[in-house]
């Protein structure tokens, strides 16, 4: 009798266990289910892992039994780790990580670190932040998130300026890889499409010890999305009011129909993504097509500058600034094959085509193409070692496209070929050693070496680097790194770095020293261009790299809903490569003579209050002490950005109202004009002043059933337009309304 009863009990309990194996994952604050979260089960003894994810209703089932570890993670939430004691039906909760402190970042150390543990303050911009404001290009994103960052328009295109640093000191990477193709030392920002950005990591300061050339003032690393769900589709579109309709009554039989219609393209962005993640294979395809119309800004008045001591007035007549229009498309593909938990193969490729339309009716326009492909193998033979071998090839082409002939002519080709090998060894959970070797082959074909014919040059760099990451005590972390670059023209350059981080309760104090450098570009090395017999621009094969010493100290406080950090830094630049007039103004020679010091302070804040509101912002103060005479493109000492968001989350409805502002402080600098005075040519110096200004944006974003979202926004609500337009002022065309829709399966 007893036996039958026990047997029955066991039987029933077994059925009960089998039935109530289902678990639910909810958001701790809203109690809403979290779909597609990552669940990892690890068997402690055998160190095997199994993965699953929550379904659309937040439910999942146990894959392992007692004495295994369960880890639940999802972007925007703190990771939950626990040991399974009983296989019972349970509700798990994830706490929203509004401050992203537990988000994994890679840029600061080239290895995985939680944001709060990154040795150099890393700024993180998540995909959600990009999507909520309806941003569709990286310039909009960086403008809004980094104080003291401006994209200025100059003759050749767009020039970045971040807290006094120019494009030569900022390294922009996609998934840790360098980009080929430059326009005036700037990469083609149009290649960066927001719909496939997972997150952007920004590390300020010199990082040449990890990334080599150009990482002198900052690294902006754009991490692209991978597919997590079994199958997903995203389709989106954004349309914004035209910047300026140049030819509103254009007729199809107009002689210049092609030229005129291309200046008035729609301000549009269409994108689609397709992803899958089935067993061992996952992949993602992204497609973006976008266009923008060209517009002109006219100075409001002629400028009269009085040089009182010589009783002369210089007149700068009101000029027109042309901002080009464009249309482009990008298609990219990522594939991953997981042989096992230890071995993984990744491959990626992308194609980009961009046409740029300017206000020159000269029967031709610029066409830029880019082809990038790469692959990597990740091998983790055991828990301690992580090896990665990869290569990346990026080729950027520039053509003149002749409209009337339907032909094109190549005038520029730049190739970056970069194989890498990196090994990360976890000595123990307090000590990690990283080491690696790289090779960079850079090739440039251009008509700018000699000015009349297209010629090619190339350089190679061999690299070795090492980094030691030790937790000296529970509170003190020390990272020391060294990188040796051997360049085919200037030889060896060593870049060291040291970072110390001290954790005390909710505070983190960081001290950083690093050396940065920039290899001379192929143009700076090999240029020999005689301009119309007037003067020659000459490079020098013996140029040394520019180098800098960077020192910074920062303090960060994080507690519950508040995160604030302040960073003070000093950046000493030397051997800057500048053009110098020689031989009675007949030769413009590139030499290493410039030096300058950049001192600054950056303050970042994030605060969530009253459950629905969050406020974030930053302030930057920069002292730019340049040794060159003429400070043409300067940054304002004071700059700030600010954002306030109201967020409402219901079961089937999400609302986000965001007001953001970018404040640019006053600019003061001196420049000169050559004036013929009293029989001779003299330089007359005068002061230029630009008033501070701010640009405000509003966006209202609604999401229904977590699938369909609609954003209506107004860019530049206050309709700010600069009175005088040059590379020191804003090229914002004025108030524009946009609508953005997005559907995801």
């Amino acid at each position, binding site marked *: 009798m007893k036996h039958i009863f026990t047997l029955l009990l066991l039987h029933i309990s077994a059925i009960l266990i089998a039935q109530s194996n289902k678990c639910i994952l909810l958001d701790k604050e809203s109690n809403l289910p979290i779909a597609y979260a990552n669940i990892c089960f690890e068997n402690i003894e055998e160190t095997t892992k199994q993965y699953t994810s929550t379904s659309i209703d937040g439910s999942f089932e146990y894959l392992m039994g007692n004495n295994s570890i369960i880890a639940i993670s999802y972007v925007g939430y703190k990771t939950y780790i626990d040991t399974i004691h009983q296989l019972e039906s349970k509700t798990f909760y994830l706490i929203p990580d509004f401050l992203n402190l537990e988000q994994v970042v890679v840029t600061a150390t080239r290895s995985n670190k939680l944001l709060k543990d990154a040795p150099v303050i890393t700024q993180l911009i998540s995909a959600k932040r990009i999507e909520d404001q309806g941003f569709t290009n990286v310039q909009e994103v960086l403008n809004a998130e980094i104080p003291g960052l401006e994209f200025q328009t100059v003759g050749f295109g767009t020039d970045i300026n971040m807290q006094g640093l120019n494009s030569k000191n900022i390294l922009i990477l996609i998934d840790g890889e360098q980009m080929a193709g430059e326009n005036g030392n700037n990469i083609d920002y149009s290649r960066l499409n927001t719909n496939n950005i997972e997150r952007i990591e920004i590390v300020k300061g010199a990082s040449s010890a990890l990334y080599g050339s150009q990482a002198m003032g900052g690294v902006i690393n754009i991490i692209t999305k991978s597919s997590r769900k079994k199958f997903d589709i995203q389709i989106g579109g954004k349309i914004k009011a035209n910047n300026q309709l140049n030819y509103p009554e254009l007729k199809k039989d107009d002689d210049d129909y092609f030229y005129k219609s291309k200046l008035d393209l729609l301000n549009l962005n269409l994108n689609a993504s397709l992803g899958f993640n089935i067993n061992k294979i996952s992949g993602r395809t992204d497609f973006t097509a976008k266009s923008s119309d060209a517009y002109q800004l006219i100075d409001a008045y002629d400028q009269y500058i009085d040089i009182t001591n010589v009783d002369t007035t210089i007149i700068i007549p009101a000029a027109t600034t042309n901002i080009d229009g464009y249309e482009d498309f990008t298609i990219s593909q990522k594939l991953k094959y997981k042989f096992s938990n230890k071995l993984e193969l990744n491959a990626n490729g992308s194609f980009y085509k961009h046409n740029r339309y300017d*206000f020159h009716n000269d029967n031709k326009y610029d066409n830029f193409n880019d082809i990038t492909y790469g692959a990597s193998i990740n091998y983790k033979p055991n828990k301690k070692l992580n090896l990665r071998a990869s290569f990346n090839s990026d080729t950027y082409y520039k053509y*003149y496209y*002749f409209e009337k002939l339907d032909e094109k002519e190549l005038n520029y080709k730049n190739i970056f070929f970069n194989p890498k090998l990196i090994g990360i060894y976890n000595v123990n959970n307090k000590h990690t050693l990283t080491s690696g070797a790289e090779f960079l082959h850079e090739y440039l074909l251009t008509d700018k070496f000699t000015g009349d014919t297209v010629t090619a040059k190339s350089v190679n760099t061999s690299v070795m680097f090492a980094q030691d990451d030790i937790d000296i005590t529970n509170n003190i972390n020390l990272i020391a790194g060294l990188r040796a670059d051997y360049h085919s023209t200037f030889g060896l350059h060593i870049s060291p770095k040291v970072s110390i981080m001290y954790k005390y309760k909710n505070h983190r104090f960081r001290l950083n020293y690093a050396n940065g450098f920039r290899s001379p570009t192929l143009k700076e090395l090999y240029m020999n261009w005689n301009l*119309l017999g007037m003067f020659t621009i000459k490079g020098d094969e013996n140029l040394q790299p520019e180098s800098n010493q960077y020192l910074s100290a920062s303090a960060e406080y994080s507690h519950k809903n508040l995160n604030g950090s302040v960073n003070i830094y000093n950046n000493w630049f030397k051997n800057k490569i500048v053009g110098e007039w020689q031989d009675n103004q007949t030769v413009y020679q590139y030499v290493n003579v410039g030096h300058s010091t950049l001192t600054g302070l950056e303050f970042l804040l994030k605060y969530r209050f009253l459950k629905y509101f969050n406020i974030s912002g930053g302030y930057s103060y920069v002292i730019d002490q340049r040794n060159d005479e003429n400070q043409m493109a300067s940054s304002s000492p004071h700059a700030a950005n600010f954002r306030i968001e109201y967020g409402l989350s219901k079961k089937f409805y999400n609302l986000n109202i965001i007001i953001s502002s970018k404040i640019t402080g006053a600019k003061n600098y001196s420049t000169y004009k*050559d004036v013929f005075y009293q029989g001779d*040519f003299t330089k007359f110096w005068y002061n230029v002043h630009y008033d501070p200004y701010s640009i405000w944006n509003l966006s209202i974003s609604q999401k229904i059933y977590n699938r369909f979202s609609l954003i209506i926004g107004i860019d530049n609500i206050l309709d700010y337009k600069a009175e005088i337009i040059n590379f020191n002022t804003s090229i914002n065309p004025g108030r524009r309304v946009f609508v953005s829709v997005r559907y995801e399966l």
Partner: protein
Amino acid sequence: MTKFKLTTVLFLAAILSITACKKDEENNDDNTDSSTLKTGTVTLSKSEMYKDDWVYFSFASGKEVNGIDSTNFNSRTDWDIAFHSRLGRTNGGNSGVGNAGVFDTEITDYSSIIHVDTNLLMSDTTVQLITGIGNMGPTYKTVAGNTTFDSAFDVDYTQHPPTYTATKNTFVLRTADGKYAKIQIQSYFDEYGKSGHITFKYAYQTNGSTDLK
């Protein structure tokens, strides 16, 4: 026998020539105005910057005329108009021994200009040719030319390089030998986007009347 053959051949030749002539006349009768109005589109070569060497064009041939330079242009009769960058000259007035003159109708609808009002045609005087760019800015030389062509392009010198936008005004002309034509300057660039290649379409009335239909 030979004499007979010769006569036959001559007779046949005569008939053939008469009928051939008749055919030509018939052709002439059928296409009255269009056959005497010669049209075309031309892209001229580029004149060298800063040098006083112009590119000369003749309507009669529909082509550039070679061998004319600053020493002989004002004694030659085989050219009608000439260009140097955006400057223009006609073979008349101060620029040459011909009877040429030009007038800007300021009308962009090219096909609507069907008549030349000879009273409005302006003769050449002088224009300023840029000979170089020094410390003080551009230096100029005064040469023969027609200022009417100034309105062929809107040039924005504040851009680098300057932007040349053709106004598409229709210009009416008298040629060196007193015939009439109209031109519309389309572009400052050739099909490869190279600057300084004046591209225009023209209609030239070979029968000497002021009718441009």
